[in-house]
């Protein structure tokens, strides 16, 4: 016989949730559909399990869920901290390296400058102290300033020096 009931129509019939007029008429006249309906209904009753499901201790169950949630939250938080720490660490290392380099360069430069100045000062002092040549005086300090500060014996000595010098040397100077 054509036009058998559809699966959902069987369910409507089993559950009494309203089979159409045509469906009901078909069921009355079709032995195949009637048999399928009967066996499906029997199976539905058999599948119904009214046996007691053994229940756990609900307080313990709730406690275990809460504990597990908390431990996962802590794990997640520490994992997040670990992951955010990673990009910072190289940046911090680079910054420290850069600062060290700047400090070292500045230190070296300062040391070099102060060393150079000390050497120059020593050389000038040594040159002035050890030289009797008046030209050294003239090059290192202002000649006329020095002349104005000379005392009587030094002025006399300078005058004698100039008079004793050959004329050609003085003319060349």
């Amino acid at each position, binding site marked *: 016989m054509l036009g058998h009931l559809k699966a*959902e129509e069987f369910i409507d019939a089993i559950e009494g949730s309203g089979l159409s007029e045509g469906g009901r008429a078909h069921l009355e006249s079709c032995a195949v559909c009637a048999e399928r309906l009967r066996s499906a209904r029997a*199976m539905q009753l058999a*599948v119904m399990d009214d046996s007691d*499901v*053994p*229940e756990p201790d609900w307080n313990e*169950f*709730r406690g275990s869920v809460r504990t597990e*949630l908390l431990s996962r939250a802590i794990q997640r938080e520490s994992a997040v901290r670990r992951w955010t720490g990673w990009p910072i660490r190289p940046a911090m290392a680079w910054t420290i390296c850069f600062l060290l380099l700047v400090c070292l360069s500045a230190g070296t430069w300062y040391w070099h400058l102060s060393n150079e100045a000390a050497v120059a000062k020593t050389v000038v002092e040594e040159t002035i102290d050890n030289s009797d040549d008046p030209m050294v005086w003239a090059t290192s300090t202002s000649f006329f300033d020095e002349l104005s500060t000379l005392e009587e014996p030094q002025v006399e000595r300078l005058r004698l020096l100039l008079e004793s010098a050959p004329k050609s040397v003085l003319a060349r100077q």
Partner: protein
Amino acid sequence: MDTSLAGSLPMTSHQSDADAALVDRYLSGDMPAFDELMIRYERQIYRVCYRFVENRDDAMDLAQEVFIKAFEHLPSFRRESSLKTWLYRIAMNHCINHVKKHSQEFVEVSEFTGSVNPSIQSHLEEQEKRDHLRRLLKHLPPKQKAILEMRINEQLSYEEIATMSGRSISTIKASVFFALEKLRKLVKEPGKQG
């Protein structure tokens, strides 16, 4: 147990509102809301899990995993369906995955039980028949079994099952009917199991 399933109704809006309020409280850090949510649904979710594994300890583990997954994803719960439907969906998917992952173990059990001579089935006690049927249920595809259990033993409405599985109501009804037919065949011809 009432054998008529026509009476099972979708969740009322009052329950749904209460759930939404509890979810809001939990998300704002109110820990008693956690207990209230658990008390509301722990039995139902545990029962669903038990239907799949039929073992108290395994069902507890499964239910615990379901709740952990649910609470962890609660901030992303979009409230397009009720909390109950959402929880059942998580439970159903989790249990189906569990069954798929451990299908070998289930096959081994059923191979053993399949060796029972069918000729003596008529003499088995009521409980034994029921146990046998429960074992046969394991031969259904996991999704089909889940739908059948949700409807017949958890008495969820077709609308709820359709929402949680993302299928139409007629597909769910058809799935229930074909599952019943397949079971009937398995009972009649035990050799065709698996």
